[in-house]
C-alpha cells in the first residue's frame, strides 16, 4: 500500500543502484531532511538544543561504532575512549591556533591510530578477547588523559573550547552548531549507506559472517579487520570533536568514561546491528527513553501519592539501558531496525499478504 513498488522499472544500472529505489522511501527521506533543515525555525530553541542536537551527534557516533560492530562483527567496549582521543586532540590543536577543519581531521586521525594500536593487540585473537582488550583500552585511555596534565590540565580540570570557524563560518550560537552537527551527521550517514555497497563494505560483511570463509574467498581478514577499526575510530574521533565543539563546549576527562561507551553500544544493539536507520532509532530511544520514563514515573508516583527516592530516579537510565540491551538481544536481536522492517514489509504488499517474502 504505502511503499508502492508497482511501475518501478530499472532501465540502467545507475538507476538500479539508487539508495532509495522506492518513491515512498525517497519522499520520507526528503520530508525528514526538510524538517531537520527547517527545525531551527519550526521548533522551540530548547527542544532544538536539548533533544535534536544531541540526537544528531550521538547518532553519528552510533553509526561509526555500527560500522565496526554491525559491519565487521567486531566488538568494541571502549568507543568513549576513542571519542575522547579525538576530542582532546582537536581541542588542543584549536587552542594552538590550528584551523578547526584540520584539527577535526587530526582528531580523527589520532583516534584512528591509537584505536588501531589496541586493535592490533586485540585482533590477533578472537571476539571475547577483543571485548576485554577494548574494555582495558577504555580504562587505560581514561587514566592517561586524567593523569597527564599536558592533556587534561589535571584530574579535575575542564578545558574550554575556544570559538571556532568552519570554512569561514563561525560555529557558535544554537543555530550554527545545530547545522554543523547536522552536516557531519549527514556525511557520516551517507558514508555508511554507501560503504555497504563498496568492495570494502562487502569484504567487511564477509569477515563478519565467517572469517575463515572470507579468507578462503580471498579476503585478507586481518587487513580488513584493521581497516574497520581504523575507519570506525576515525569517525569516532571526528564525532568526539564535534561533540565537544557543538554540544559540551568544554572537555573534562569524566565526560568520556565507560558510561559513554556503554550508552553508544546500547544504541547500536537496540537500534540494530549493521543498520543505518537503526542507529538513529537506537540513539533516539537510548537518549530519550530515560527522560520520558523518569517523567512518567515521577508523574505516576506523585499522582498515586507515593514518594520516589532520588536514588531510584537517578538509576533509572542504567536500569533501562541494561534492560533494553538484554531484552532486545533475547527477543529481537536485530533491534528496532528489524521491527521497522517488519512493518515496512507488511505494508509493502498489503493487502496481499501471501506475496510477502
Amino acid at each position, binding site marked *: 500500500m504505502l511503499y508502492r513498488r508497482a511501475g518501478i522499472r530499472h532501465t540502467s544500472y545507475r538507476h538500479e543502484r539508487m539508495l532509495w529505489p522506492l518513491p515512498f522511501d525517497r519522499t520520507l527521506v526528503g520530508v525528514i531532511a526538510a524538517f531537520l533543515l527547517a527545525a531551527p525555525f519550526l521548533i522551540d530553541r530548547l527542544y532544538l538544543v536539548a533533544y535534536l542536537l544531541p540526537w544528531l551527534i550521538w547518532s553519528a557516533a552510533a553509526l561509526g561504532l555500527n560500522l565496526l*560492530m554491525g559491519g565487521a*562483527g*567486531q*566488538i568494541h*567496549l571502549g568507543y568513549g575512549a576513542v571519542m575522547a582521543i579525538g576530542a582532546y586532540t582537536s581541542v588542543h590543536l584549536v587552542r594552538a591556533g590550528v584551523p578547526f577543519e584540520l584539527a577535526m581531521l587530526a582528531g580523527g586521525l589520532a583516534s584512528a591510530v591509537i584505536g588501531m594500536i*589496541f586493535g592490533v*593487540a*586485540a*585482533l*590477533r*585473537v*578472537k*571476539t*571475547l*578477547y577483543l*571485548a*576485554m*582488550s577494548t*574494555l*582495558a*583500552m577504555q*580504562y*587505560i585511555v581514561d*587514566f592517561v588523559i*586524567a*593523569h597527564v596534565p599536558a592533556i587534561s590540565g589535571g*584530574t579535575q580540570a575542564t578545558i574550554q573550547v575556544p570559538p571556532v570557524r568552519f570554512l569561514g563560518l563561525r560555529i557558535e550560537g544554537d543555530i550554527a552548531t545545530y547545522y554543523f552537527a547536522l552536516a557531519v551527521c549527514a556525511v557520516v550517514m551517507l558514508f555508511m549507506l554507501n560503504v555497504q555497497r563498496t568492495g570494502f563494505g562487502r569484504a567487511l560483511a564477509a569477515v563478519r559472517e565467517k*572469517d575463515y570463509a572470507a579468507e578462503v574467498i580471498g579476503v585478507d*581478514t*586481518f587487513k580488513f*579487520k584493521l581497516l574497520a577499526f581504523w575507519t570506525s575510530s576515525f569517525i569516532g574521533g571526528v564525532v568526539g570533536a564535534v561533540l565537544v565543539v557543538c554540544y559540551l563546549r568544554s572537555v573534562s576527562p569524566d565526560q568520556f568514561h565507560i558510561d559513554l561507551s*556503554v550508552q553508544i*553500544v*546500547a544504541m547500536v*544493539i537496540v537500534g540494530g546491528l549493521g543498520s543505518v536507520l537503526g542507529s538513529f532509532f537506537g540513539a533516539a530511544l537510548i537518549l530519550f527513553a530515560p527522560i520520558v520514563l523518569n517523567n512518567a514515573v515521577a508523574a505516576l508516583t506523585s499522582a498515586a501519592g507515593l514518594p520516589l*527516592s532520588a*536514588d*531510584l530516579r*537517578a*538509576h*533509572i*537510565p*542504567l*536500569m*533501562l*539501558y*541494561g*534492560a*533494553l*540491551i*538484554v531484552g532486545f*538481544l*533475547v527477543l529481537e*536481536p536485530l533491534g528496532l531496525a528489524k521491527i521497522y522492517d517488519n512493518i515496512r514489509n507488511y505494508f509493502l504488499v498489503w493487502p496481499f499478504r501471501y506475496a510477502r517474502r
Partner: protein
Amino acid sequence: MDLWLIGELALTGALVGLMYALVALGIVLVYKTSGVANFAQGAIAMTGGYATWAFATLLGAPLFLAIPLALATMFAVGFLIERAVLRHMVGQPVIMIIMVTFGMEIFLRGVMPGLFGVSVKRLDLGIPQAPLFVGEMLINRAYLIGGLASAALIVAAIVLFNSRAGIVMRAVSDDQGASWSVGIRVERAIAIAWGLSAGSATAAGILWGATQGVDWSLSLLLMKALAIAILGGLDSIPGVLLAGLIVGVCESLATGIVDPLVGGGTRDIVASLIILMTLLVRPYGLFGREQIERV
C-alpha cells in the same frame, strides 16, 4: 624503599588478590562449562553483597543465617539467569552473548543502588578493626580473613571438580554433544555452573562488603576478575589462584610505589595493563588450553 614496606604491600596485595580471585572463579566456572564469558560477574558480586546486607539489616537476620540465605538466593539467581536469558542465546554469535551478560551487568548496577539507595552499606562480620602486626608489617584483619576464606573456597572448587558433579561439568566443558550422547544433562550442568558462579561471586561480595562496605563500586571487581581469569587461562581453576596472587601483588605494589610518582589512580589500570599484556604475549593465559583461534 624499605623492605618492610614492600613486604607489607606484597602480603596485603596477595590477600586482596585472593579475594579478587574468588570473583574470577565464577567467570572461569561458567566459561569452562558453557563457553560463555560472564561480563555480569562484578554486578552479581555486588548483588550478593546487597542481598546479604538486606537479609542482615532490613530483615534483621543474624549473620550466620543471613550469609547462607544470601548464598542460596544468589544460587537461585544464577540458575534463573541461565534459564531465562542465556539459554535463549545458544547458537547466537559470541558478540551477542557477551553483550547480553554486559547488559545484565549494567541492569544490576542500576537496580541495586536504585532500590536500596546509593549510600555505602556497612556489612559487619565482626572482624576487629585493629591491624595485625607481623614484624613491622601491618596486616588488615579483614583482608587476612577474606584472603584465607577465598583461598579455601577456591581449593574447595578444585576438589569439587574431582567429585562426580565436577566430572560431569568437565565432560560438558570438553564436548557438549558427546556428553549429551552418554546421558549427561548438559543444561543442568550449565545451570549448576551458573549457580555456583553466582554463589562464589556472593561470597566475594560479602568479603569485600566487610572490608569496604556495600555499594555500586563492588561491580568494579569485574575488571580485576577478568584480568585474573585471562591471566590464569579462562578454563583453569588453579590458574585463578596463581593469577589472583599475581594481580593482587602487582596492583598493591603499583599503588604503593608508582602512585606517589604520578598522583594516584594506578590501582584502576593495573588490571587493564595485565589484560593487554596477557593478550599480546600469551593469549591463552598461564594454564589455559591452547585452543584460541588466531587470525
